């Protein structure tokens, strides 16, 4: 009689605790999957911001190009005043509203929700997630200027990403 009872209690299935532990492990792995999903959603947001940032970076270079070409118009072909544009070793702002290089370390772009315009003027919109600064570096050898347009944008969940474009401007006209 006693022997039989011991035998039976040896033929055990899972205990409740074992089952719970197994389910816990399963839930944990599912939780990891959920985290992955939310990561994918964040990446989606970031990819869209990157598109906007790239076009804003191109705009930075293009606005400098406009200045360089304005100088050419003024001088009639040879750009002697290009070196005077190299004032942005520590960063400058320039936007479509004024088109002027202004030394600054704060490149926040403001987004006007009615005209959909990005500019550095805080009075016309709300601070966007983008900021842009233009840097210039003059070549020691041939008088050309390297212009770097840096757009940084904040990423959901902290941190920021950057888009950097560089172009060389020469003091003579190349189309």
């Amino acid at each position: 009689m006693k022997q039989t009872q011991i035998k039976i209690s040896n033929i055990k299935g899972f205990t409740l605790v074992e089952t719970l532990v197994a389910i816990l492990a399963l839930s944990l792995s599912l939780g990891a999957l959920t985290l992955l999903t939310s990561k994918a959603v964040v990446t989606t947001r970031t990819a869209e911001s990157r598109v906007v940032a790239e076009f804003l970076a191109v705009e930075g270079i293009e606005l400098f190009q406009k200045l360089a070409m304005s100088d050419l118009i003024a001088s009639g072909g040879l750009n002697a005043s290009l070196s005077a544009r190299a004032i942005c070793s520590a960063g400058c702002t320039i936007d479509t509203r004024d088109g002027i290089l202004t030394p600054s370390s704060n490149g926040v772009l403001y987004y006007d929700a009615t005209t959909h315009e990005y500019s550095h003027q805080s009075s016309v919109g709300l601070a966007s997630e983008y900021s842009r600064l233009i840097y210039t570096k003059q070549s020691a050898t041939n008088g050309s200027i390297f212009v770097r347009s840096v757009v940084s944008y904040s990423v959901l969940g902290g941190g920021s990403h950057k888009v950097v474009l560089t172009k060389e401007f020469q003091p003579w006209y190349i189309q």
Partner: protein
Amino acid sequence: MQKKSYPGFTLIETLVSVAIFTLAVSLGTLVIISMNQAAGRVRVRDQAIQSIYYVMDTVSRSVRTGTQYESVSPETFSYIDQKGDAIELSKSTSAEQLVMYMTPLGSTVKKAEPLHDVYAVKLIAIQFKLKGAAKAPIDSEQPSVAITAQFGYEYRGKQFIIPIQTTLTQRYIDIGSALGGLPTGG
């Protein structure tokens, strides 16, 4: 009496574990569904982004090498392209689409060429801000145009907007109009 001491699951234990298991499985299903949705949105978004790059690349190349910039209204921008054809950029009146209207040199027939498919990306609105026009008002400023465009794509009935802005400046020196003379360009 003997039966009671068999150490299997009790009904309560079974019910509890089945409940927990069901909860875990339904959570898992939700995760899979939302992952699937995220993947679907990424597919749609990538297509939209590709289209935006294509549209802006086409516009940039054509506008930069163009001359005689003109903007009669903020929604329309026209110029003469490198081949001498008259180009007009504006949003289609019938679809959410950016259209390049072209009147070839020596012709009066205007051809419309949509720059993207509305299923890939929609153009919600576009504005052109022209400065230093070679045509009225004539000034000596290097011509440039700031383009602000709101592109959008839809996923599961929800619209996502990508508001881009870029500026393009003419690659030909505008010395002609600066001197108040000939039209610009080579």
